[in-house]
Structure formats: structure tokens, C-alpha cells
């Protein structure tokens, strides 16, 4: 960046190479140090602040060792913890098998319309977690359309479980899809030539290769459920869970210490599953060898028919829920006047935050997507493609894995504690859009970084060697060669960050101010005020925005692939 500041040197050639060298040094070392500082401020210190806050006993904050002991031994806490565990285990036990069947159908059978089913299955990612809850109220609440199908109303345990099943389904599905995408056809050939039944082949080939992913999916669903308060707040009724209690303690009663303590409890399952998952991964190692042949399923009417029915049922359920949310946002006065209107979209007349919230969300999502993708992709590049400062690389890699194990709710609490500290010069950021963007990038960092790393690892290190021998500065190589080649992956990161920022509520709920209120937060506020129609309308708007942007980026990515990425098709093995 500041490469022009190099001192003028007598020989032209020497000067050229040294400018490049200084430029590179600034790019590589400077870039890494900037990343380190950012990760420290955006990830590490806020997390430390939780522990500090949880164990400091300021009056009226509900923190400290005594309060911790009281909390953990109280009957109320046991009740909340028991509820949280029951809900999360039930959700994981329901979602993982369903997602496995769905993923199996998409990867290992020949059912028609795979693209459509995949698209529908991703719908829950496009809306805040309150949306399934709202739709369930309209379906199975006391005035719900399908109320007659249930003996009791939806509020409580089953409402939360059903809502979370819908919300977490695509998360589990994505892990299982990628696990099931890898299979060595030679193993199946060998199995069938030895006379093994398909069931036996599944038990001895497919299951061992995917059980780690099943565990990972189980853990992810468990963690997402136990830390989500969007669904419980809408359909929980009086069935309360820990995540909701943390939210109420901080937002409702301003008891930051108590919130921090519950936050720490919620961090435990995430840390535990993260540790076990990493351990399993190391034990399993690489199962696919370079000589593997890609498995292509053979046609089988009976099998494909069964799987098509399963996929259709799941997609129908998802469409019913999302269709209901859209429909309810258009109904004038549920349930007595079912004529359609856009009344609920007149946000400025009602509580919440109105159109300001929606435009803030757009700004936040754009900022997160653009700034985040540049930072994350450049960071991944520096970590993957430079051989100097190994210690720094390792530290950066470790730090960027931390957010994976930290639920948004806990991260958001950490931000409140850290950035609201008296004497912290960064306090000026509190309540600003900047902080919301920083927090959202940090929250979704790991997944985006993994996408970037995977794409970068596909590129041969020879590229960098060639650049070096041509004495071309690395940053120029990065901008002119690496970025264009990896554009599809980069667009994927942009899409992921945009959609996540549009829908997130877990961390943002603690960080917004009246000027920076977000659409997903407005959904929550409107539902709280009893304006369920407005909440449905705002959720619908978020859904369509996320889906629209995703489609647009997918289309752009496909166009790019066709034009500039033609080499990919000719490359063997792709």
C-alpha cells in the first residue's frame, strides 16, 4: 500500500525489486498483524469479557461466584436447563435422520428435480428463526388453520421443537450433503461382486464414512437449538429455556452478570462438541484416496420412488410453513377477515422500527458481505500461501476457528461487556452500525474462511513460485491472478455473509441502538408487542431479499464460470 514511500535508490533494477519486496512485506506482515489485531478485538477480548463479567460481583448485576453458585443450585435453573436439554436433544434426534435421508436422496439416488428440492430445503436459511415460529402459530395456534389436527395448542415444548427442526434442518443437511458427496465407486463394486446386500454395503461402507458427519450435524443442531431464542420467544408460551433467560436477564432486567453466567453455560455444549469433533476428525483421517472413482448411483425404481416420497414430504412441510408465513403477512385481520392486503407492510404505522430497520439491515448485510469477504479471503490467502511467520499463521488459524465454537448469543453478550466497559476507548462504537458489522463478520467468520481455504488449496503453489521468480509483487499476483480464479468461491462467501447478516438476531439483539435497529430485531419487537401480522410481513421481506440476492449471485457465478472459468471443465477430476 505504502510501497511508494521507499527511498529512491541509484540503480533502477535494484529499486524495482526492493519496492516490490517492501510492498510485499507490508502486504504480508502488515496484513497479518492487522488481522491479528482485528481478531483479538472482535473475537478474543469480547469472549474474555464474558468470563470477567460473569465472575465479577458488581451489585445488582447478578454475577460473581456466590451468584454463580446460587444460579447453578436454584430449582429454576434446573428447570430451565432440563427444558433446554430436552428440547435440543429432541430436535437433534428428529433433524439428523431426516436430513440424512434427504441428503442421501440428493447424493446417492436418481430422483428427478434435485435442484428444486435442494433450493426448497435451503429456505429456512433465508429467514430469521422467528419465522418458523410465527408460521406455526398460524398453523397450529388456537386460531391456526390446522388446529384441529392437534389435541392441544402449539405453545410449549412441541412448538419449540417443531420450529427448531425447521430452522436447523438446512444446517444439518449441508454437513451431510458434503459427507455423502464423497464415495469411492470401487468399494461398492467390490461389495456387490462379493454378494453383499445394499443394506450390508451401507453398514460397512457408507455409514463408517459418514458417521463422523452425523455426529457433527448432531452437535451443530444441538448447539444451534440450545442457543436460539427466536423460536422459543414466539411459540414457547410458558415453557422457558436457558437462551431466553439469558436474553431476558440482559435486555429485560439489565442483569449483565447473570446473562454472562448463563452465556458461559451455553458455551459448554458448543465447546464440548467442537472438541470431540476435532478429535474424531483426527482419528478418521483421509478416507478418499487419489485413485478413487466417483460413485454414480444405478437406477432403481423402488429405491428412487421411496426417496422421492420422503423428499416430497419434507419439501411439502417446508413449503407449507413458509407459504403460511407469507400468506399470513397478507391477511387483513386474522382470523376474522381473511381478505388480502398489504396493511401489515405499512411498518411505519406500528411498533418495531419500520422501514428504517429494513434499510439498516440492507446496509448491514452489504457491509458485512463486502468488507467481510475481502478481509476473510485475503486473510485466508495470507495464511495459505505464505511460508514466512509460521507462528503467526498458526495463531491466526486458531483464532479464526474460535467463532465456530461460540454461539451468536454468547458472542453478542461478550460484545456488550467488552465495548461497554467504562474506560474502553472503543466505547464510541457501541450501538453503531460499525460494531454490528464487525460482530456479524466475527460470528460467521469460520465457515466463510473454510470456503476460502478450500478454494485456495485447489490452486497450485507453483503460481506463487512463478510470481516470485518473475519478481512480480505478491499483492499484484493476488489481485490479478488469485482473486479472478477464485471468484466463484468469493461470490459464495459474499452470499453466505449477506444472507447470514440479513437473518441474524442472536448477537445483534444486544448491540443495536434506535438508529441501527435491524429488520430481524424488528420482527422480534413486533411479535413482543402482539403485532404478529407485522412480524410475519417483515420476516417475509427478509426471506425474499435473501432469496433474491442468493439467486442473483448464483446467476452471476454461473455466468462467470461459463466465461472466465472454462479451464475448470477441461481440468481432469473436476
Amino acid at each position, binding site marked *: 500500500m505504502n510501497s511508494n514511500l521507499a527511498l529512491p535508490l541509484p540503480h533502477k533494477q535494484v529499486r524495482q525489486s526492493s519496492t516490490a519486496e517492501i510492498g510485499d512485506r507490508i502486504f504480508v506482515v502488515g496484513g497479518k498483524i492487522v488481522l491479528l489485531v482485528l481478531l483479538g478485538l472482535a473475537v478474543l477480548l469480547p469472549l474474555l469479557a464474558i468470563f470477567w463479567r460473569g465472575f465479577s460481583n458488581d451489585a*445488582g448485576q447478578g454475577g460473581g461466584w456466590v451468584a454463580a453458585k446460587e444460579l447453578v443450585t436454584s*430449582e*429454576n435453573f434446573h*428447570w*430451565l436447563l432440563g427444558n433446554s436439554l430436552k428440547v435440543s436433544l429432541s430436535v437433534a434426534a428428529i433433524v439428523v435422520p431426516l436430513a440424512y435421508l434427504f441428503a442421501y436422496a440428493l447424493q446417492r439416488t436418481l430422483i428427478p428435480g434435485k435442484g428444486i428440492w435442494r433450493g426448497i430445503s435451503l429456505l429456512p436459511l433465508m429467514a430469521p428463526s422467528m419465522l418458523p415460529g410465527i408460521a406455526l*402459530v398460524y398453523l397450529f*395456534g*388456537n*386460531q391456526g388453520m390446522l388446529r384441529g389436527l392437534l389435541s392441544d395448542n402449539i*405453545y410449549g415444548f412441541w412448538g419449540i421443537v417443531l420450529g427448531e427442526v425447521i430452522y436447523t434442518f438446512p444446517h444439518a443437511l449441508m454437513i451431510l450433503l458434503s459427507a455423502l458427496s464423497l464415495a469411492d465407486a470401487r468399494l461398492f463394486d467390490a461389495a456387490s461382486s462379493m454378494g453383499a446386500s445394499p443394506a450390508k454395503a451401507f453398514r460397512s461402507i457408507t455409514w463408517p464414512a459418514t458417521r463422523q458427519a452425523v455426529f457433527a450435524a448432531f452437535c451443530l443442531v444441538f448447539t444451534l437449538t440450545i442457543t436460539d431464542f427466536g423460536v422459543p420467544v414466539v411459540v414457547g*408460551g*410458558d*415453557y*422457558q429455556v436457558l437462551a431466553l*433467560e439469558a436474553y*431476558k436477564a440482559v*435486555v*429485560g*432486567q*439489565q442483569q*449483565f452478570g447473570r446473562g454472562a453466567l448463563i452465556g458461559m453455560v451455553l458455551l459448554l455444549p458448543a465447546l464440548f462438541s467442537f472438541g470431540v469433533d476435532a478429535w474424531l476428525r483426527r482419528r478418521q483421517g483421509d478416507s478418499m484416496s487419489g485413485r478413487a472413482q466417483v460413485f454414480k448411483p444405478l437406477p432403481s425404481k423402488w429405491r428412487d420412488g421411496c426417496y422421492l416420497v420422503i423428499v416430497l414430504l419434507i419439501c411439502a412441510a417446508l413449503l407449507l410453513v413458509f407459504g403460511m408465513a407469507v400468506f399470513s403477512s397478507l391477511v387483513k*385481520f*386474522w*382470523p*376474522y*377477515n381473511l381478505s388480502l392486503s398489504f396493511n401489515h407492510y405499512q411498518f*411505519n*404505522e*406500528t*411498533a*418495531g422500527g419500520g422501514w428504517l430497520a429494513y434499510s439498516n439491515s440492507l446496509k448491514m448485510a452489504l457491509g458485512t458481505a463486502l468488507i467481510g469477504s475481502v478481509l476473510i479471503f485475503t486473510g485466508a490467502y495470507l495464511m495459505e500461501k505464505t511460508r514466512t511467520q509460521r507462528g503467526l499463521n498458526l495463531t491466526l488459524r486458531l483464532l479464526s476457528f474460535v467463532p465456530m465454537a461460540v454461539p451468536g448469543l454468547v458472542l453478542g453478550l461478550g460484545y456488550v461487556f467488552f465495548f461497554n466497559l*467504562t474506560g474502553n476507548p472503543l466505547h*464510541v*462504537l457501541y450501538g*453503531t452500525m*460499525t460494531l454490528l458489522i464487525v460482530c456479524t463478520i466475527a460470528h460467521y467468520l469460520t465457515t466463510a474462511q473454510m470456503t476460502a481455504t478450500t478454494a485456495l488449496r485447489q490452486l497450485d503453489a507453483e503460481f506463487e513460485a512463478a510470481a516470485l521468480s518473475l519478481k512480480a509483487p505478491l499483492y499484484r499476483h493476488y489481485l490479478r491472478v488469485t482473486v479472478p480464479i477464485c471468484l466463484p468461491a468469493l461470490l459464495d462467501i459474499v452470499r453466505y455473509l449477506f444472507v447470514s447478516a440479513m437473518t441474524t438476531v442472536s448477537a445483534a439483539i444486544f448491540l443495536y*441502538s*434506535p*438508529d441501527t435497529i435491524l429488520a430481524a430485531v424488528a420482527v422480534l419487537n413486533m411479535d*413482543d*408487542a*402482539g*403485532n*404478529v401480522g407485522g412480524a410475519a410481513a417483515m420476516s417475509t421481506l427478509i426471506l425474499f431479499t435473501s432469496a433474491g440476492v442468493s439467486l442473483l449471485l448464483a446467476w452471476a457465478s454461473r455466468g462467470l464460470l461459463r466465461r472466465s472459468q472454462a479451464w475448470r471443465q477441461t481440468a481432469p477430476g473436476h
Partner: protein
Amino acid sequence: MFKPMALAAAVLATFSLNAFAAKTELTVYTALEAEQLKSYKEAFEKANPDVEIKWVRDSTGIITAKLLAEKARPQADAVWGLAASSLAILDQQGMLQSYAPKDLGKIGANYRDAANPPAWVGMDVWAATICFNTVEAEKQGLTKPVSWQDLTKPEYKGKIVMPNPASSGTGFLDVSAWLQTFGEKQGWAYMDGLHQNIGQYVHSGSKPCKLAAAGEFPIGISFEYPAVQLKRQGAPLDIILPKEGLGWEIEATAVIKGTPHEEAAKKLADFSASAEAMDLYKENFAVLAQPGIAKPQTELPADYEQRLIKNDFAWASKNRDEILAEWRKRYDGKSEKVVAK
């Protein structure tokens, strides 16, 4: 980021000769209904073009907790529309700047802080109401309740929603009124009975009435403003004023001590007590702090004001913490167990 800017704006406003008057940004905490904010803000800014209101709105309990939590470093400049019992707590903590607004003389003696100058000045009164869905009542064969005691009848099991008093001012005024009218022991016994029939405790005071209007739960313990509004929109509601009397609260205004925008905050307090502001309030409320302005609301009976109970605010705000702790212990997060007993 906007804080230093606001400060700069304030400095500018103080020193400028009104020629290029920069607007003072006044951070106002409120628990008013969201639908009311727009017209109140517009009217105030029209009367005071040099001041701009920045709202922070939430339920009574939450705004109170927020103000108390920020005691060391207040973020609010003024409070416009918060329960008087909450403001009394802030006053006990020394957080309010006493100020006599210009029209203080016209404010009814019951509707202001007794001290001189007062720490808070009332705007209007809101009171407990039962919202009763007539369509659902017919469908489900429910008789119309006429008293608070009626609500404990077994026929209403799971059919009633009420606001959680910890977060909602309306919820708290209900609990405080039951304890005052029935006596403490009978009051809690009454709530034990009522608890058996509660379908849900919710976050805000208006939500029960909205849920009742939509038939989600046929009976909502709420207050008269959403009831009247929803009825005007055509919801099939009966507005029931229980015969034992109505718990009520004063919605009031105060200046936060130490605000850098004291002048602007006082202008707000002046405006809030003026006849002009009462004209705004009367659209939403039947009882106002300035007597003689209110217009009767056709949805409410003529003797509405006489149905309010004799309310001891000093007692309510002094015991608020204990009452809420007891309520939480009995009903919050243990609903299943109590039902099982």
C-alpha cells in the same frame, strides 16, 4: 459515534445566534405505545423546531431497568411517558431533576409528584381492562366475566393471557391493585387461583388484548387504550371493567439529572404538561392530568374515572422489588409445577 456529534451539536446550539441553529438531539426514553410516538414527536418538534427527539422505546419494566442500569452514565436526557411508580423509584435514586413546567398550576394535584418543584409530572391515566372476545366466547360457550374474581372460575382454564409484571407496567399495576384491593394475603391467593387459568404470560401490556382480539386466547388482561383501538378497527371485543375496581397508573414525564441538554429537556417537560399536549393525549386516553380537557370515549362508560381504585403509589413503588420477586418465585418459570400441584 453519534454521541460526540450530538455533543458538538449541543455546543453549537448554545453558542450560535439562532441564525444557523443546529438542532439539539434529545434522547427520550419512553414506554408509550409505538403508534403514539409519531404524532407526539411531530407536535413537540413543531412547537420546538430547535429540538429533535430520539426515541428509545420498550416496555415499562425494561425501560425502568435500563435507566437504573445506566445510573452511573445516563444515556437518556428525558423520560416522556413512563409509569409514575417507575419514576418514583428513579427519584429515590436521585436520578431525576426536579422541575416545575410552565403549566404546572393546571395539573390536577393527584397527577403530579407531591414535592415542589415536582420530580415528575403526569400526562394521563391508563387503567386495567379485560378484553373479551365475543365470537370465541360463543363458540367455546364461555360466560362473560364481570369481576376479577370471575376470572378464577374453572371454565376459563387456559383461556386467559396477562402481561408479565416484571416487564410490563400494565402487568405490575394489575398485581399491585389486586394486592391493594384484596389485601396482601388474599391478593396472592387470588393470583394463585388466576394462575391456574392463565394460558400465557406475555411481555407487553397491549399484547393480551391483541391476542384476545385475534381469538388466539379469548380473554386478555390489558388496558383500555389497545382495547378501544382494536374495537374501533372492528375486532369482536367486549371491553370489561371489573366491578371490584380498576388498577391504574399515571403516565408521566421527567428530566434526567445531569443531562447536557437540560434546556431542551425542560422544553419537553413544558410541552408535556401543556394544553396542546393534552389535546394529543385525549385522543388516546379518557383521563388526563389537566382536568376539563378530556373527551368521553364512546367505548368506555361515563363513570370511567370513578371506577379507578384508590391507588397508593408510594406503597407500590416502595415494594415493587419485593412484589416482583415474590411473583417470579410463584409463577415465573415454574408454571408446570404449580399446575401439577
